[in-house]
């Protein structure tokens, strides 16, 4: 093996980002690294490139144990990385980019002729016919990617990590890039390929490793896997017990309808969908990353204006053109990225919990301090928020506790419809179970919940109904006994298969 990783572990405050992960890379193979957001892919890569120091575990390169402390050190060891966003300098020429930091010198001055020759030598074999004297920015992203690869290979030369390299390329450019990658594989480089386009993974890779929740799930030859199995690995198996417990709930009669959304759509973001939410019902949204799950929720909460569609409740039509309007309609939204969209880091737990309620009351009617204190203490106890006291800044809490503060903010509003986008991402197992229990409790009290999650276990465990989103469309609705890992995975995979046929 060219590169072996054994029992790699990395923790961040409140999160176990990598838990005893192993990974092997042979010379002359393309090894795909897969997993949903927060699975630990980027943490693993950052440990490899020296951006993070692992807490435990061993990285062996060419038989020697290595512990890179910076990207520069990783490059010298032979590990080069190319990111989705080209991290070269577009305002310098191609040659300057390629030779950056080791320009050929003549009498102590940079020799432009020598640099041109050096750059052309580096690009030799990549099938590019470009003028290395022109600014890098004048070329397409695909060519910039290839230049970045050429630079990484020349600097490192053993392991090449491609982190979502195709995200902004069209089909023809992807082919061009893949030809280059195949060429490098033939030269004996070990290539780690990170992508969430499954077709490309099947097209290019030799082996696949799937991570989920920071844990190694499986490593297999690509030939031994089909799409359905792969998606199953990525999204996880059902926890049978939990499902049994909840399936009783699935069989209950349909709940009295409360909210009706008809033909909600935004051009280029999500195609029109209908959604009916019953009182006390949990509707799950399943789908892969980028399928339009989050976008659907943002439309419902007025975060993105809908270009079409109507919303109404039992009393009449609702306007949902802004978050404020949605809050007035009794909606709440705990967003996916709680650090940038959820918490107000420097404010205290008390102030964060009171924020939405205060915003609805208006600035002129402040919530009395004692009342804020009471609210904060109530939710700290009810949700078991681990904090020294209510005056601590939310930014100092762990991820799971921050999520609970965001939840408390909405619960204080007593909303009738709560949208939870990945409420359990990146939080520890204990808090995870508590949040699921809380969802049960809330819906028993009559609140309706829209749950978006990458974890099928979670969706299956709590949802009365699951809607599958793929390719920016709501494509399937599963109810009652029809909700299972298999049915969801099949509904998601169908699309991928169709895509494969078309290509």
């Amino acid at each position: 093996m060219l590169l072996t990783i054994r029992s790699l572990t990395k923790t961040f405050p409140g999160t176990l980002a990598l838990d005893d992960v192993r990974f092997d890379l042979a010379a002359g193979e393309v090894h795909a690294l897969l997993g949903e957001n927060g699975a630990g892919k980027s943490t693993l890569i950052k440990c490899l490139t020296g951006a993070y120091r692992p807490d435990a575990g061993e990285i062996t390169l060419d038989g020697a144990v290595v512990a890179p402390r910076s990207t520069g050190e990783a490059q010298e060891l032979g590990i080069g990385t190319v990111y989705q966003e080209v991290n070269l300098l577009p305002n310098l020429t191609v040659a300057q980019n390629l030779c950056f930091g080791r320009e050929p010198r003549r009498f102590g001055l940079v020799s432009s002729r020598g640099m041109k020759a050096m750059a052309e030598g580096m690009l030799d074999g990549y099938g590019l016919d470009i003028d290395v004297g022109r600014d890098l920015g004048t070329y397409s992203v695909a060519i910039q990617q290839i230049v970045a690869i050429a630079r990484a290979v020349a600097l490192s030369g053993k392991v090449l990590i491609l982190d979502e390299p195709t995200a902004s390329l069209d089909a023809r450019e992807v082919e061009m890039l893949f030809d280059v990658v195949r060429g490098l594989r033939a030269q004996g480089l070990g290539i780690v390929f990170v992508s969430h386009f499954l077709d490309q993974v099947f097209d290019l890779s030799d082996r696949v490793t799937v991570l989920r929740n920071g844990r190694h799930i499986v490593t297999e030859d690509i030939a031994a896997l089909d799409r359905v199995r792969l998606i199953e690995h990525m999204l996880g198996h059902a926890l049978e017990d939990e499902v049994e417990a909840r399936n009783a709930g699935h069989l209950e009669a349909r709940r009295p309808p409360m909210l009706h959304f008809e033909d909600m759509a935004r051009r280029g973001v999500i195609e029109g969908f209908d959604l009916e939410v019953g009182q006390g019902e949990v509707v799950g949204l399943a789908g892969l990353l980028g399928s339009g799950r989050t976008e659907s929720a943002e439309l419902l909460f007025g975060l993105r204006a809908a270009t079409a569609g109507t919303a109404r409740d039992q009393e009449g039509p609702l306007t949902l053109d802004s978050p404020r309007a949605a809050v007035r309609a009794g909606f709440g939204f705990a967003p996916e990225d709680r650090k940038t969209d959820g918490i107000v880091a420097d404010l205290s737990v008390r102030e964060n919990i009171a924020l939405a309620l205060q915003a609805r009351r208006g600035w002129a009617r402040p919530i009395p301090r004692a009342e804020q204190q009471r609210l904060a203490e109530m939710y700290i106890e009810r949700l078991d928020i681990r904090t020294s006291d209510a005056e601590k800044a939310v930014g100092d809490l762990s991820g799971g506790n921050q999520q609970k503060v965001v939840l408390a903010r909405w619960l204080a509003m007593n909303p009738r419809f709560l949208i939870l986008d990945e409420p359990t991402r990146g939080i520890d197992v204990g808090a995870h179970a508590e949040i699921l229990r809380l969802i049960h409790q809330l819906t028993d009290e009559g609140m309706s919940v829209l749950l978006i999650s990458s974890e099928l276990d979670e969706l299956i465990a709590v949802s009365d109904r699951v809607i599958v989103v793929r390719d920016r469309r709501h494509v399937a609705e599963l109810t009652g006994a029809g909700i299972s890992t298999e049915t969801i995975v099949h509904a998601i995979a169908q699309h991928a298969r169709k895509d494969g046929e078309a290509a």
Partner: protein
Amino acid sequence: MQTLRRLAPQIVTLLAVCLLVTLFFPGFLDISMSGGRLVGPVIDILKRSAPVALLAIGMTLVIATRGIDLSVGTVIAICGAVAAWAIAGGMGLWAAVALAIGAGLLAGLWNGVLVAVIGIQPIVATLILMTAGRGIAQLITEGRILTFTDPGFAWFGSGTLFGMPVPAVIWIVTGVVMAQLMRRTALGLLVEAIGINRRASALAGVNALVLLIAVYMASGLCAALAGIITAADIRGADANNAGLWLELDAILAVVIGGNSLLGGRFSIAAALLGALIIQTIDTGILLAGFPSEYNLVIKAGLVVIILVLQSPRLATEWYFWRRSVREGPPPATTKEHAR
């Protein structure tokens, strides 16, 4: 108690600066009553700090939203010009005041719309009015220094109320009203929230758009008051020099007040103390008898010292140093515990 702890560094600094000036000029703290009004260097400082103090009030709020308002110095010139123009045109005292305040609010609205609605970075958005505004003021005064003789209006600059100079009364009252408005209502919390995380606040239903515009209008209002005082003081409007570079002093006052330029938590009282510190340094250097060429250099030196002493990193170092000294040799601590 909490407020006092927040203000302690500024209060200590102000006292230290006063002490320093007293060393050079022993009569610094003398206050006497003369013709129904208080006189003395300290009273003079309270009066002269009015423009910067007023600007600092508005600037504190703008900076709390993670913005900055570079246009306030220019708005002083515009509002002064509007007031002088109205007085000279015989519109009467209160019309002049109302028009000047209106001009300040309008300037704030312009800044606020550029920042909140169009999304231009605050430093760029307010730079537009900072540079263009002097031209507007010159158009109003038709390029001359527009003078007037209206004792009623001049009262705002040189009058006396309860024995105090009117400008001092204006800024103190404005400061108290604004601080109470922020803390007795939820405005302070909401302003801090959008300054720390506008997107999360908007998601929680906070009307960030309106709040941002309101904050820039508050800054415009404060600048208008400062403009009225400046014009009334010299009984004329000087479009070129009124309020020149005062925006920088106001920002400095906010920073000396310990408010972060990255937005969030703010204290108006601390910013006002900052303005007083700046003015005390200014006046103190003159009283101490240094040649005027030294003023700016000495001021810069003192400001650097103040900011270094206030830096959080130094505070941490100091804390650890003191702790290590206090805990000293381990046996001593054990004895204390045993007791």
